[in-house]
């Protein structure tokens, strides 16, 4: 979750399917004398997850008040992307045993024994360490500290601790994916203020309905894997109701940057429209009960829209800032 590797969209794969409560890493996999291809290392970074991370971080950076030199701004985003990649690699290192038993993740480099497990760990540590150091030296040590914490949060708090133990895993773990815009913002301003915290809170609140929409339709996988995702642990009805609650809360929260005067009407109206649609799509998910062989269309529709929601909302935030800076509506 970022960091930075948020437990989000593509994280479906990650959330995987365990057969034991905790996947204890082994030292290395027996592989032939063949060395890993560079593409295998690239795959460890979860490039699909990284897109949303980079986008939200970039939006946080562009929407922040103040100026940042393009080279420093690029470095900040690069560090956030590297940190996300490092956290993703460490996640796959830890969960290699689990991934091997899942259909969706069995084709990853580690389950296929395309590389040594220790190499994946070392690669993850290298990316994580390098991203933190460069962020600190080139951009800002507060941003570097948050980057380090977000990696720790995703790898240790979420992957190792919460995920196999509590159905609230995705709720608390969602914080990892909420860090990128906060770090992007702080890279510019150098201080934590209300606005970046609100951006953090928006993604935090968005994560449960986004993820549970998916978890509802892959419930059998989680059940088989013994992972205590909310639909399996608390039941489908409870998960649907909770998704609805989070979506209701997301509506005013997404509007709060407008209410406190930190953004203009472009963001405010976009947030109102997007969050209303989000809520309208969550209502049928929240109130219905799946039947046998249910195609789960409302859940799939909500999941697809939730990804679009975040892209457009943060895009509107940047557009709003650009228009304000140009003084078009001044």
């Amino acid at each position, binding site marked *: 979750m970022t960091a930075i590797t948020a437990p989000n969209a593509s994280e479906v794969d990650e959330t995987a399917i365990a057969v034991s409560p905790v996947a204890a890493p082994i030292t290395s996999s027996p592989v032939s004398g063949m*060395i890993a291809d560079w593409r295998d290392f690239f795959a460890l970074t979860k490039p699909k997850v990284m897109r949303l991370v980079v986008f939200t971080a970039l939006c946080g950076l562009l929407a922040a008040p103040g100026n940042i030199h393009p080279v420093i701004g690029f470095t900040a985003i690069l560090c956030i992307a590297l940190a996300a990649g490092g956290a993703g690699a460490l996640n796959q290192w830890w969960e290699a045993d689990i991934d091997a038993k899942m259909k969706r993740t069995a084709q990853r480099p580690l389950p296929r024994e395309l590389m040594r497990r220790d190499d994946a760990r070392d690669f993850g540590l290298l990316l994580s360490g390098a991203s933190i150091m460069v962020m600190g030296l080139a951009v800002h040590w507060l941003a570097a500290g948050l980057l380090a914490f977000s990696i720790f949060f995703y790898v240790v708090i979420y992957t190792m601790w919460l995920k196999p133990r509590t159905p609230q895993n995705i709720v608390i773990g969602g914080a990892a994916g909420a860090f990128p815009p906060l770090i992007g913002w702080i890279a510019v301003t150098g201080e934590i203020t209300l606005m970046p915290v609100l951006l953090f809170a928006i993604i935090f609140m968005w994560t449960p309905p986004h993820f549970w929409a998916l978890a509802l339709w892959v419930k059998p996988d989680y059940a088989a894997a013994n992972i205590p995702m909310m639909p399996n642990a608390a039941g489908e009805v409870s998960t649907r109701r909770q998704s609805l609650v989070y979506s209701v809360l997301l509506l005013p929260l997404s509007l709060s940057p407008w209410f406190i005067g930190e953004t203009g009407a472009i963001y405010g109206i976009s947030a109102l429209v997007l969050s209303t649609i989000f809520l309208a799509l969550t209502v049928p998910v929240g109130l219905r009960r799946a039947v046998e062989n249910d195609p789960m269309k409302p859940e799939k529709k909500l999941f697809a829209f939730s990804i679009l929601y975040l892209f457009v909302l943060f895009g509107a935030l940047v557009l709003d800032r650009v228009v304000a800076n140009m003084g078009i509506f001044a």
Partner: protein
Amino acid sequence: MTPQEEEEFKRRRKARNLVIGLVLLGFVVLFYAITIVRIGEQ
């Protein structure tokens, strides 16, 4: 290792070395640019 596997091994090693070289080159350029920017700010 069969001759085909050895060929594949060499191809992968070459590709990895190339990628590592490009990444290092990229970082050299980046650090140079960062240094110039930071010096310019002072």
